[in-house]
């Protein structure tokens, strides 16, 4: 595929941004902007898919005379870039389709429309870039545009703070990446990725680069403890943008990590995988526990992004460990698992955010404690959301299970690793992964059960209506993709083969040749899974049993009030709420991790005052890591504050003193 196709798409998106700037307030701007975004994404996605199908051989690179005059802007699309272009544009396209309907309810379209195409373009550019300068520029541009989208509704409580924290964390991340790429480029300034790839890097540089990339790409992806901005910023944006932030932009961050660590840095020692695995396991576990404590539907989903990024990084860490020990086939399996999860997560997380957006539109509520019973009012949207819930909970036969299954298979190959550190760490990581999968299922029982099932908890729900056609089309399309990727994972794995071949010099066995469309990670005697057969068996058994019972026994049915234990007309408030649903898990895990405490105030006998139950939760990351830093910065600012109110003589003497000091340093150094 010639690379200009993507560059034209990017150009078209930028142009749309400019047009939107002028026409955002007009009624037809929404259709125009999202329509063009949809078209551009479809073109870019098809091109990326065509390149992947053609075996992913790199298209000839292009150097445009943009940016720094002696560097230019390099663009290149290899198998890795093609895969991520496919993920970005699939997510972008479906989000645009959703926004065609969802955007109708936008209060401030002039704050969203100009930035939305630019955001899509920036994410494409990050993946297309083939030199450090354009990579960093696109990365920072992506951060800034997404920041503008995050504070689109800046008057709502908490959104301004979310935007502020996001801006700080994004700048910090770019700074870390700048240093990492600077170290890689070296003093001679080989800015093109080709030159960096060819160069040799010492162990110290490799270690520094790895740490910096973990900070830079990790903060954008949401690795603990750099995730704090994510659950604030992602829910603050309009829902289709939330889907892009969670489903797609975090994947661009994963792309940055893979590009730098697997591709540019070359071989790394096994210790690098220890760091990645430990961080990833902590991210996975904390992410899902935080999510369980949330009552805000969108924030719950954002915390699940943190969890899923952890799962992806577990796969990447395993791939690093296997690669460092020359186990190419195992490394390919682990990397395939991670990339498959990248694809899967972009599908079901977008779907879930679309669902949350549909609920928000229909009821005006994000707080699950005020929802309930929506399955009756929004049957199709709730069905699509249910598919997303099953997929993200890693339950067969949907796609989330396949990538977790592959990760487990990779973990089971790791006793062959020679290093003791890894031998002890990896089973623990496996246990954390299994625990998180079970907790995620618990969390989505809560999310779906409280939001869509039961009886309405507030009047807002009783007037809710089904989502519009465009939103439903986007959601059902993603739901179908979740099912397809779950029952036919073989083709996806085969598409990833050239990619793993290039990055870890190995690939999984070709899945196209296995019987009955099963997938085989290593060899058939070791393990195999056939999503299609499992799906067919379950469907057949369910239909068979339904048919047998209805035909041979009884199909009589009577509607009656639910069993009320003799207390008639129980209020909907007596239902289990999100907080009460999570209470057992909060008691088991939360007391350790969050220092959760419950305070019950019972009124004295005879008093008509209500009893009060208060739950106290502490965010360990924020309180232990961020609060001290913020405290120090504030204290220093307080101290230095009086510098603002000096006389001109004092300022002049300060300037003079500084000059003398600098000259002195210079004299001593040279």
């Amino acid at each position, binding site marked *: 595929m010639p690379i200009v196709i993507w560059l034209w798409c990017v150009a078209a998106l930028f142009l749309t941004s400019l047009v939107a700037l002028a026409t955002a307030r007009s009624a037809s701007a929404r259709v125009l902007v999202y329509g063009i975004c949809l078209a551009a994404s479809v073109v870019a996605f098809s091109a990326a898919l065509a390149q992947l199908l053609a075996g992913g051989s790199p298209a000839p690179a292009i150097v445009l005379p943009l940016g720094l005059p002696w560097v230019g802007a390099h663009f290149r699309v290899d198998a890795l870039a093609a895969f991520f272009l496919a993920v970005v544009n699939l997510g972008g396209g479906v989000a645009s389709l959703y926004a065609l309907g969802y955007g109708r309810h936008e209060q401030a379209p002039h704050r969203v429309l100009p930035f939305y195409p630019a955001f899509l373009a920036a994410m494409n550019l990050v993946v297309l870039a083939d030199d450090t300068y354009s990579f960093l520029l696109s990365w920072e541009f992506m951060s800034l545009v997404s920041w503008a989208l995050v504070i689109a509704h800046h008057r709502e409580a908490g959104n301004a703070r979310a935007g502020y924290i996001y801006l700080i964390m994004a700048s910090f991340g770019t700074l870390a990446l700048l240093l990492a790429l600077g170290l890689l480029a070296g003093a001679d300034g080989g800015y093109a990725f080709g030159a960096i790839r060819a160069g040799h890097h010492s162990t110290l540089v490799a270690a520094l680069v790895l740490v910096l990339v973990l900070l830079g790409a990790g903060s954008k992806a949401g690795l603990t403890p750099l995730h704090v901005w994510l659950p604030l910023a992602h829910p603050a944006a309009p829902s289709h943008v939330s889907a892009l932030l969670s489903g797609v932009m975090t994947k661009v961050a994963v792309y940055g990590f893979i590009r730098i660590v697997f591709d540019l840095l070359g071989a790394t020692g096994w210790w690098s995988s220890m760091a990645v695995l430990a961080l990833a396991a902590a991210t996975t576990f904390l992410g899902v526990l935080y999510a369980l404590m949330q009552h805000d539907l969108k924030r719950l989903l954002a915390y699940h992004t943190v969890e899923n990024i952890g799962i992806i990084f577990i796969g990447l860490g395993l791939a690093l460990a296997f690669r460092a020990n020359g186990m190419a086939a195992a490394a390919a399996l682990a990397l395939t698992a991670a990339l498959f999860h990248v694809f899967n997560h972009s599908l079901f997380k977008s779907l879930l955010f679309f669902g949350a957006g549909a609920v928000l539109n229909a009821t005006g509520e994000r707080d699950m404690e005020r929802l309930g019973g929506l399955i009756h009012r929004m049957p199709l949207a709730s069905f699509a959301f249910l598919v997303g819930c099953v997929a993200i*909970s890693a339950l067969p036969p949907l796609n989330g299970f396949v990538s977790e299954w592959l990760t487990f298979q990779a973990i089971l190959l790791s006793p062959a690793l020679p290093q003791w550190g890894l031998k002890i760490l990896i089973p623990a990581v496996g246990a954390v992964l299994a625990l998180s999968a079970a907790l995620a299922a618990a969390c989505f029982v809560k999310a779906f059960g409280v939001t869509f099932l039961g009886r309405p908890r507030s009047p807002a729900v009783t007037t809710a209506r089904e989502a519009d056609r465009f939103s439903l089309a986007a959601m059902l399309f993603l739901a179908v993709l979740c099912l397809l990727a779950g029952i036919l994972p073989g083709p996806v794995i085969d598409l990833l083969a050239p990619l793993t071949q290039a990055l870890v010099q190995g690939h999984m066995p070709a899945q196209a040749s296995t019987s009955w469309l099963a997938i085989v990670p290593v060899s058939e005697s070791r393990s195999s899974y056939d999503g299609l057969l499992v799906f067919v068996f379950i469907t057949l058994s369910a239909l068979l049993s339904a048919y047998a019972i209805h035909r041979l026994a009884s199909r009589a049915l009577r509607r009656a009030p639910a069993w009320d234990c003799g207390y008639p007309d129980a209020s909907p408030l007596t239902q289990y709420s999100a907080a009460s649903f999570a209470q057992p898990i909060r008691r088991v895990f939360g007391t350790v991790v969050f220092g959760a405490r419950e305070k019950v105030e019972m009124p004295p006998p005879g008093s008509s005052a209500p009893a009060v139950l208060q739950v106290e939760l502490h965010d360990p990351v924020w309180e232990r890591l961020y609060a001290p830093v913020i405290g120090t910065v504030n204290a220093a600012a307080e101290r230095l504050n009086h510098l603002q109110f000096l006389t001109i003589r004092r300022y002049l003497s300060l300037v003079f003193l500084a000059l003398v000091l600098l000259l002195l340093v210079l004299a001593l150094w040279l």
Partner: protein
Amino acid sequence: MALIHEFAVQGLQMLVVLLLAPALVGLVRKVKARLLRRRGADILQPYRDILRLVRKEVVLAENASWLFRATPYLIFAATWVAAALVPTFATNLMFSWSADLIAITALLASARFFLALAGMDVGTSFGGIGASREVMIASLAEPAMMMIVFTLALIAGSTQLSTIAAFMQSPMVGLRVSLGLALVALVIVAIAENARIPVDNPATHLELTMVHEAMVLEYSGRHLALIELTAALKLLLYVSLIACIFLPWGVVPPDASMAAQLVAAFAYLVKLALSGVCLALFETAIAKMRVFRVPEFLGAALMLGLLAALLRFVSGSL
């Protein structure tokens, strides 16, 4: 011909597990009753219960959605498929490769996911309390199960259950510390997953002590019949699982002679009966735990499983 034969064996196995499951429940109930010096109902009583329920009309709560009505069929299908993948008297079944032990665990998790959702569908506090406690128990039992799977997979070099079962029959197994730990963990997980005493009480309808029964409180008629049958299938599944891994004697490959298969089937029946009696003895001898003691009980299983997996990771012979 061979294909037809294999199909027949697979089909037979699916029917066998379905037909045997209520008998196992009946046996456990009977033995428990005898231990309490009651006469107890006939072993065949669960069949009669299911037949009676199937013929009755369904009384559906006014607020119940399509999910509530679809769930019994879904969980029955998922559990039946999972049960059909566990070798009972013959290994290497036709479709055993389509899902390994991890997938079987996940299939049961799918069933639980939908049952917990159904518990929340009507919007009473009983369904909620059951669902909430069920997922709390599952959040510990599932990772423990996964650690057991890790241990077995690392010993047998495969996650395919039939390969593991075949390996367990070979003389290469021997006595291993990790296997012992895995057995204890698996028994704990099986007790918790099947809502048996001391984790849950299948015979109670006292709201503060029930988990599984609270979840399915709103079900009636054919729906309830399917749910009862599913619970019985799940019990049979776990007993078969423990039997084919830790008591592998008598399990034959599908191409074995008819006589060998008959002997294997008989051995399987003996194992089932033995496990049923053991379960009844255990349940009679122990008291039910408070709900918040359960995490400690299951945490022990998780730690044992992790320890077993860790032993396998650091040493090939333990």
